């Protein structure tokens, strides 16, 4: 079953195994690997004794493409990495290039960017919650989640015409002014959303089966998480209060008041609680921001042709899944010399083996879900 199609140069041997150990291939076509991830599991009965993630089925050479596009031309490509959080990707890239240029977006643009990014965070977490619950067997939350996500996507659509891969930001600020009624839409959404989160929580948080399936599953200690470079909600659930929004504030985050939730145990249940609380905090940020959007220009003066001075820059933001960093080297021409992306999903996926060892097959599904990977970002 697994020997003949092994075209990935993997290191797991499929030689003679003991009577109890079998190798199970999950994916790349599997309902709960969230795309084209392939996981090779070494099983002792139903218990995982080893695992290997085999990636690259969605590799498109995004970083290489960057070397043959101008800075503006490359911006839409980054949306295709983490396609459930395209706005965040765009923000990271635009700010990195702005840093390289020495420019800064005007205040109004920064506030609008913050609002849209936080909405995107909520949308991304909603996708995570729905699919995660579906993996664990709860059929209903996914529809509730997508119902609310739809509202967010509608706001995006009204703002820039696109729903999924929005390309809503430009280097130096925004392309579009906010539409009439933008504030009302966001406000209405945020006000309704508080009650919606409670609705999800009544379905899951206290549910014995849900707690049984997630508590104590896929434990990742803070030390391990840091050693593996894990960031985002996964790290915070392990108890470290690390959030780029607080540590190196970007956009307009320094103006707003919000909490960074952390979890005590670093298990799947804590990651669930952390993400739920993050949605509440995102809502809070949106509500604060929408109260007071400064007026003024939305675009800094960066010129039509971007020619950053030679040099290099690393800029990272807190994407919904963790630290999303862009490392850009300029050789003074209109095209970047090298772009390297630090995708949170890719790094977080490294922790999978640590979490899955000793778990049961059913837990593997929960663990893949709880890392919250998007294969477009892992493979790039």
């Amino acid at each position, binding site marked *: 079953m697994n020997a003949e199609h092994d075209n990935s140069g993997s290191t797991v041997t499929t030689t003679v195994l003991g009577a109890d150990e079998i190798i*199970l291939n999950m994916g790349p076509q599997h309902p709960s690997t969230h795309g084209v991830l392939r996981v090779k599991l070494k099983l002792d009965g*139903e218990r995982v004794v080893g695992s290997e993630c085999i990636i690259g089925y969605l590799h498109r050479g995004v970083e290489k493409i960057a070397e043959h596009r101008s800075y503006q031309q490359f911006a839409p490509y980054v949306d295709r990495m983490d396609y459930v959080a395209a706005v965040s990707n765009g923000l990271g890239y635009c700010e990195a290039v702005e840093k390289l240029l020495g420019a800064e977006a005007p205040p109004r643009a920064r506030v609008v960017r913050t609002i849209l990014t936080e909405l995107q965070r909520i949308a991304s977490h909603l996708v995570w919650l729905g699919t995660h619950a579906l*993996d*664990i*067997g709860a059929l209903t939350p996914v*529809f*509730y989640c997508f*119902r609310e996500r739809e509202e967010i996507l509608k706001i995006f659509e009204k703002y820039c015409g696109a729903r999924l891969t929005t390309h809503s930001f430009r280097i130096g600020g925004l392309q579009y002014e906010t539409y009439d009624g933008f504030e009302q839409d966001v406000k209405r959404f945020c006000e309704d959303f508080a009650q919606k989160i409670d609705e999800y929580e009544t379905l899951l948080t206290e549910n014995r089966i849900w707690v049984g399936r997630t508590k104590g599953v896929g434990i990742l200690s803070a030390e391990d998480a840091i050693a593996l470079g894990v960031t985002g909600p996964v790290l915070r659930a392990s108890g470290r209060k690390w959030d780029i929004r607080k540590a190196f504030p970007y956009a307009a985050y320094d103006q707003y008041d919000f909490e960074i939730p952390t979890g005590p145990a670093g298990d799947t249940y804590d990651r669930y609680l952390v993400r739920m609380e993050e949605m509440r905090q995102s809502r809070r940020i949106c509500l604060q921001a929408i109260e007071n959007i400064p007026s003024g220009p939305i675009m800094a003066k960066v010129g039509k042709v971007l020619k950053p001075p030679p040099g290099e820059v690393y800029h990272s933001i807190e994407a919904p899944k963790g630290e999303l960093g862009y490392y850009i080297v300029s050789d003074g021409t209109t095209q970047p010399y090298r772009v390297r992306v630090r995708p949170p999903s890719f790094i977080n996926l490294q922790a999978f083996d640590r979490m899955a060892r000793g778990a049961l097959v*059913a837990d593997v599904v929960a663990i893949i879900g709880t890392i919250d990977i998007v294969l477009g970002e892992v493979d790039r």
Partner: protein
Amino acid sequence: MIPAILQAIRPFIIPVVCGVVIVGVFPLMAGYIVLLERKVMADMQARLGPMRVGPHGLLQPLADAFKLMLKEDIIPAHADWFLFWVAPVMSVTMALLAFAALPIGPAFQIADINVGILFILAVSSLGIYGIVLGGWASNSHYSLLGALRSAAQLVSYETAAGLGLISGLLYAGSLSMKDIVQAQSDRGVWFIFAVPVGFFIYFVGSIAETNRAPFDLPEAESELVAGYMTEYSGFRWALYFLAEYANMVVVAAIATTLFLGGWLRPFPGYHQTLPGTSIELLDALPSILFLVVALYSLKLTPRQPVKIQKIVMLLVAGGCALLALVMAAALFAPDPVKIGIHGAFWFLAKVGGYVYAFLWVRFTFPRYRFDQLMRLGWRFLIPLALVNVIVVGSGMIVQENWGWRHPLLSAIVTTLIMLGVAVFLAYDDEKHQATVQAAGGE
């Protein structure tokens, strides 16, 4: 010669006709149970469900059936073709065989076997072979894992569900399906009120036995793709599907017969008559219900966008009106006919309610993990069921010897005792789990 043969086959005519009706009608009915499931699911998930084929998706089952029949029939390479072929047939045969002893109303029963309920349990316990052999014959890890899980799960939960049934059977004092209903009529109480804990155990056990969520591990989509059905497609897959829904109806029918009063009308002591007639209000309820549905369909008819949909909707309205007419006419028919038709209505209504509870549970709860499922079965349900049998038995003795005439009195006492036992078991299980986790797994 011919009269002799006629004489010989005469006792078989009615059962054979009933059997043919069930085998012929049930697959269609299963299709509509699927439609119902999808509609209920859609309702709970804030969406519409199938709307395309026919008005409100009413022709969807037929479309699905045609699609499944036209699909390519794939037998995987290196599969054991004989068992691969035979397994789904086995599954569906055993599931439909159980219908032989189900009393759908006092008049409509293929055979009143004096070990009826055991017969149904026996036959439905054979359905496991369809799953296990199918999973093995597919020659796939997912299928085999699903099959093994299924075998372990069915064996465990059959025990619990069986013990749950026994507590009800203690009250019934018979294994014949007809006598069980009769006993409830005589005692004047449905056994769900006499042994609520037994009913609860059977409910959980029957969900697990039919592989429905939250116990649908053998076909857990997110883990094992589709479990034992992974390699099946087209019509064979449809057979498995049919077997699953048939099993669902069978367990619902057992529960209805033993715990929910079978074909008996609710509130037998309530005798409010309709003004100006001698017809009882509750007896007239079915026809009123069908009439309302018919009128509602009629109201929806002009709103259908396509002509063919209008026609189908009109047919639905006509069908419901016809049923209402039949139910109403039965009120004036001689007693056996009246009880037969109305009994069938109440029986099917109760089965429908039980199945609805299944669906409700399915869309509300996440899925158990395998070890949790086993723990729930062996550490909670089976001990609870064992204690329940003893407590209910003792309660009956006490009731008979001490002269507690009212059946509900001992029911209340035994239920309170059982609740205490359940709390204790849950507490003990949690403590055990804590020590296991403290010891670091295993």
